[in-house]
């Protein structure tokens, strides 16, 4: 017996853990939301490259595009062009799309549209492919001196990379710092400041790279800004080249690295690049389904959301049935409520889904009561079992039709839903009530009838909950946990609540003795 116990315990544990693991994987890794109402913001960025081609010359447009390896993930990206050959490549710095055409004619316009969303879990991967500028050699002796005299005091004062970089940028931005002014040589653009700072820092053996990031503001013409980025061994640090402040502001999408412009056009002129950003709220669930990284994955192939919508609807209901059965099992095993069979109440509960609870109970009681009257009459005719069942069933259908017609005529549309009651279940319920009634008396028949209705109502409440239906449909692994729960119930050998009353004679006797 202990071996048997251990076995059961193991199976239960295994089922529970697998169920939990599958569901956790779905929520934590695949970002599937726990609630159907949860929404997420996505951004749609259109990059438009326009140029005028040179007559009769082939043209090639190379556009740097984001790598999405950080806090943003790609939902999809589209390359829109007219008769261009498109190729996405990755060089040592950036991901690029190259559009090429042999004979461009007239004004050319190319689009790169990307849809992204911010990852909830911000994880910085260790950059393995970082390519930082080699140590820059100042050839001009004057510049070399200026650089050294700018760096030297910082080296003495700063404790780590963070303060070093920050301080360097700050000094570079001091208007009255002559070393800085000399090095900047009158160019006060952010890009130039970043370039100079990178050179200075490379002399201090701090590898810094330039990064262009796009602020995600909803606008039709968004300008990318320049940032300095270095890696301190744990995480990426971003610095503003204008003031040395650490950290990338919220909603900034790192787009490309290096000093070059975002796009190069060979065989064209008057190149214009505009970024426009828009955003929208979408259901988190939908988002998780469409994420490019999941397309074609094992998960997406086995997700119920891949089924046709009609079938999805069926499974939305079907997957809640085991939970309804669980309710019945609990009621029967722990409470001791008597019902007509285990599954009849669940089927009645399914019918309640369409009729709503109050109407459901009313209609069910009405049809059953009328059916019982007919059944009582048929008893006098002494018919064989099957024809008798057939007559009751036919009568049930007639009652249902009449209820529908009647309620339609007096304008209660709810009454129409009676047609959704499983008539075979109604017929069998009538037959069983009437036999129980005859054999064991009205009391027991009505108790079991009421017990069935109560059980049906409770499982209906559970099965009709939007949240529960969503959770089960989205995380079907929970069904394994339901099985585990059923195993536990299956081995329950304690008293039923009803038995405390059934064996009350024992309690009384004891009390007398005391």
């Amino acid at each position, binding site marked *: 017996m202990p071996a048997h116990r251990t076995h059961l315990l193991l199976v239960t544990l295994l089922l529970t853990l697998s169920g939990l693991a599958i569901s956790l994987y779905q929520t934590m890794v695949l970002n599937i939301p726990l609630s159907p109402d949860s929404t997420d913001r996505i951004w749609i960025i259109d990059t438009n490259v326009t140029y005028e081609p040179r007559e009769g010359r082939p043209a090639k447009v190379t556009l740097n595009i984001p790598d999405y390896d950080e806090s943003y993930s790609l939902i999809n990206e589209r390359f829109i062009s007219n008769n261009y050959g498109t190729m996405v490549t990755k060089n040592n710095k950036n991901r690029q799309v190259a559009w090429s055409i042999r004979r461009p004619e007239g004004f050319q316009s190319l689009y790169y549209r990307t849809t992204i969303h911010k990852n909830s879990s911000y994880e910085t991967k260790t950059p393995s492919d970082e390519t930082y500028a080699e140590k820059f050699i100042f050839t001009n002796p004057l510049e070399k001196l200026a650089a050294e005299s700018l760096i030297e005091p910082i080296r003495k004062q700063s404790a780590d990379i963070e303060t070093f970089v920050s301080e360097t940028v700050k000094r570079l931005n001091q208007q009255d710092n002559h070393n800085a002014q000399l090095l900047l040589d009158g160019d006060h653009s952010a890009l130039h400041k970043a370039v100079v700072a990178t050179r200075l820092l490379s002399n201090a053996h701090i590898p810094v790279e330039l990064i262009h990031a796009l602020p995600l503001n909803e606008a039709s013409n968004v300008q990318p800004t320049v940032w300095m980025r270095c890696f301190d061994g744990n995480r990426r640090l971003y610095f503003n080249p204008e003031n040395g402040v650490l950290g990338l502001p919220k909603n900034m999408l790192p787009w490309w690295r290096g000093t070059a412009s975002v796009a190069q056009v060979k065989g064209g002129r008057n190149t214009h690049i505009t970024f426009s950003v828009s955003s929208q709220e979408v259901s988190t669930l939908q988002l998780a389904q469409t994420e490019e990284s999941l397309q074609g994955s094992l998960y997406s192939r086995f997700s119920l959301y891949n089924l046709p919508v009609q079938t999805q609807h069926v499974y939305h209901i079907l997957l809640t049935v085991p939970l309804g059965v669980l309710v019945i099992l609990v009621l029967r095993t722990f409470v001791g409520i008597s019902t007509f069979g285990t599954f009849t109440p669940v089927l009645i509960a399914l019918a309640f889904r369409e009729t709503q609870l109050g109407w459901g109970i009313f209609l069910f009681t009405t049809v059953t009561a009328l059916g019982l009257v007919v059944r009582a009459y048929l008893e006098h005719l002494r018919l064989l079992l099957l024809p008798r069942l057939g007559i009751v069933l036919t009568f049930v259908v007639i009652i249902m039709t009449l209820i529908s017609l009647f309620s339609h005529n007096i304008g209660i549309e709810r009454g129409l839903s009676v047609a959704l009651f499983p008539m075979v279940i109604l017929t069998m319920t009538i037959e069983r009530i009437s036999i129980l009634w005859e054999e*064991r008396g009205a009391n027991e028949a009505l108790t079991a009838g009421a017990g069935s209705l109560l059980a049906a109502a409770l499982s209906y409440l559970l099965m009709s909950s939007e949240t529960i239906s969503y959770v089960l449909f989205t995380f079907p692994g929970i069904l394994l946990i339901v099985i585990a729960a059923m195993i536990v119930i299956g081995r*329950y050998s304690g*008293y039923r*609540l009803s038995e405390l009353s059934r064996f*009350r*004679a*024992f*309690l009384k006797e004891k009390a007398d003795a005391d």
Partner: protein
Amino acid sequence: MLINAWRKLKQEGVVGINQRNANYILKYNQRKYYPLVDDKIKTKQLATAHGVSVPPLYAHIQYEYELGELANILNNLNDFVIKPTHGAGGDGIIVITARAHGRFRKANGTLITAKELEHHCINIISGVFSLGGHRDSVLIEYRVKSLPLFERFSYNGVPDIRIIVLKGYPIQAMLRLPTQQSNGKANLHQGAIGAGIDLLSGMTETGVWFNEPITEHPDTGEEIAGTLIPGWLTILDIAARCYEMCHLGYLGVDIIIDEHHGPMMLELNARPGLNIQIANQQGLQHRLQAIESQTVERDAKERLQFVLDNFS
């Protein structure tokens, strides 16, 4: 409050349905032996083969067309019992005590026509009373005559004795007394009275009626306790021997005492009810455990001796 009730029941050794199912029926009763007790014809044949006396079988009707013979079969019989072969809980049983005015008199005194009896047989065959609604067959057998001793506290029926037997050891017994409420039937849930029986002496104790203790029969007003059941040791012996017969470790044996033939095994039950505990004012648990801890193999006689030595 609930927890206290729970504890008290546990302390008294009361076995609940879940415990009975999980720890006894599932553990000791192998499914393959169920047909031996669910089919009353098989039980009868088996008992006869093992020398256990049962009410003689008059006829076994399996198909509707055989009912044409019913009149012929019944012609020679003055009193008899009609039962479904696979009935449960005493449902579908009709006891005919006599004939009157060309009709049959039921145990409760009302009359029934041959046609009505035939319809009842059709119902039985079509499965109205069988477990799971399967087709069934009709069994017509000897009507057991009550002992005059029992006459005073039974109403329209014959009391029977239910004995719970674990691995062949009888561990608890009760006398089931039909009442007006139970329509002459001896099943507790139909309203019969259960009276505990002292296992050693065969003396009845106070009874239980609808889960409530009762001291007098509600119809006859007779004291229930203090009646000595004749042939008690024979009855216990039959119960003990039923284990080898049907191989069910947890068994309810129903024994009825006929005025002329003495104790007879009426039927076996693989899922005996738990009301016997209320009738005896004693939980089953302690005795069940005492038997479960026995490792020695014993034959029916030795088991009986063990019971008499240990449970009283």
